[in-house]
């Protein structure tokens, strides 16, 4: 079995991790892919200076995501004796998680219930809701 775990760095992400861990321990062989998406759009507007430093910033963003969110998550899974690896990507959160899951041939996506509230998620919908509606792979939303 192959599971993609989508993390967003908030505390609820831990619940998704626990759920996946539990699920994986019940099957014989299970591959876990921890995915962290840095919200980014190729159609945003930036200054010339930001563009010149973009590559550097991107590397920094990936390094921070790895260090703070992804590596600890992968470690907790491997410590539990599971096989796990990490992917950090820039892009739209829902699209990117779905693309990775589809490409990897995952059986299931596990994500946490949306953690961000407020007006923006009311207007544009949350990443989790978008993922549930558009994913090509079954999605489990952990409450």
């Amino acid at each position: 079995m192959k599971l993609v775990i989508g993390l967003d760095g908030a505390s609820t992400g831990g619940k998704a991790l626990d759920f996946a861990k539990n699920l994986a321990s019940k099957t014989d062989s299970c591959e876990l892919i921890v995915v962290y998406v840095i919200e980014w759009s190729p159609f945003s507007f930036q200054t010339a200076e930001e563009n010149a430093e973009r590559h550097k910033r991107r590397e920094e963003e990936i390094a921070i995501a790895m260090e703070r969110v992804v590596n600890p998550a992968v470690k907790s899974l491997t410590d539990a004796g599971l096989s796990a690896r990490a992917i950090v990507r820039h892009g739209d959160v829902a699209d990117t998680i779905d693309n990775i899951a589809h490409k990897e041939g995952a059986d299931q996506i596990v994500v946490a219930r949306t953690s961000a509230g407020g007006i923006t998620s009311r207007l544009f919908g949350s990443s989790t809701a978008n993922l549930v509606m558009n994913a090509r792979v079954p999605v489990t939303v952990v409450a």
Partner: protein
Amino acid sequence: MQTIQRCLLALGALVAMTGQAAAQEAASLDARVNEIFASSTGWFVNAIFAPIPGTAFPWIVMWLVIGASVFTIYFAFVQFRFFGHAIGLVKGDYSDPNDAGEVSHFQALATALSGTVGLGNIAGVAVAVGIGGPGATFWMILAGLLGMASKFTECTLGVKYRNEYPDGTVSGGPMYYISKGFDELGLPGGKILAVLFSIFCILGALGGGNMFQANQAHAQITQITGDFPGWITGVIFAAVVFAVIVGGIKSIAKVTEKVVPFMGILYVGAAIVVLIVNYNMIGWAFGQIWAGAFTGLGVAGGFVGALIQGFKRAAFSNEAGVGSAAIAHSAVKTKEPITEGFVSLLEPLIDTVVICTMTALVIIISQQLIIDADTGNYVLNEAGTAIATVNDNGGVALTSAAFGSAISWFPFVLAIAVVLFAFSTMISWSYYGLKAWTYLFGEGKTTELVFKIIFCIFIVIGAAASLGPVIDFSDAAIFAMAVVNITALYFLMKVVKKELHSYASRLKSGEIKKYQH
């Protein structure tokens, strides 16, 4: 925190210095700045705009048009053949998903556009149509279409010969492709040309990229508020720009970068509304443009006058052949430098063929230019230098009045748009100027700070000086960049041709294909 404090202190000192000087000679300061400015830059302006002997045609305008035509023919109308492909690249069809998070083609184009779309499209077009008549629009569009090939050439080279530093930042632009490209081809003089370009780029940044912007922003503000001394606008502008480029307060720049595209769309939208309201006059307006292009319809200098104004303002607006865009485009993430060349050719199209034409149509249709009812020709003003307009408006005031005649509240929106456009163009040019500056004097905190402070001081000078000398110097400095840049492009265009052939054949064979997203 300490750096911000220090910056604010320095800023306070700058404001206080300027403020004191102004308080002493409040009334005469504008006039003195103007006088000193005109007398100290006159020789430079005269050299750049010298007419071709025996004609009234400035050689520099000829230079730009010949350059754009040569590139158009040399690359066999690349601006039309690869137009569709350019759109595909901007949409991200050919972007590797693994490069997500890097600078996209769209972002590089948008950044370059925010440096060019601005006062050239609003005030510059008004100057062109005000002096050269509606016919200037025809030549402006033609220059825009040809200029797409110049842009393609310089931006391809900009990416190909950019510097990529170990820390992950990039620097590109004519100074790099001139020196590296000439070395690669074994040509002498690359370094000298690169230095020359950098000097003109700094002057261009201070002129068209700074003083012209401050000057016209002030003119637009006084339209609304009534007259007040220019240095006040200058100091406020300088303070905000200072906060962004020295204080590193990115949030201001970020807000501008988001608002400016919105303003651009709003501007074009308003122009379309004016055209729809006067839909029965669109045919007449195009008739005026067509007739004026070949007869001048009574403007000073006849059709040649229309042609000169059209070409000049188009070049000033889209900066094709000038080399500035190559600096902005060079930060893109791509394995094929030529892809950014394709994307960049959309820039003169959007800037000149679409936005400038909109402005011109609105001015013509709103009948701000006075026509002699008997002859159908335009009436000249008393001095005989430009077409007489309703209320003697010129520059940005003419555009504002033209929009205002159809949408009464639009001048207020336009005032905000002008201020924001001016601001974003200043931020862009401060970067272009800085790149040229560091090319000459080396990178380092102190050298960079020196340039940034000079840049802010020129904002005050620009706002205080009157339009004539400022616009002359701004034009001259920017066109001087084109003298060096196009010379270099003639030597380097074969490099671009090689890239074009290789890319075109791989595109045809299917080796370069769209990514499945």
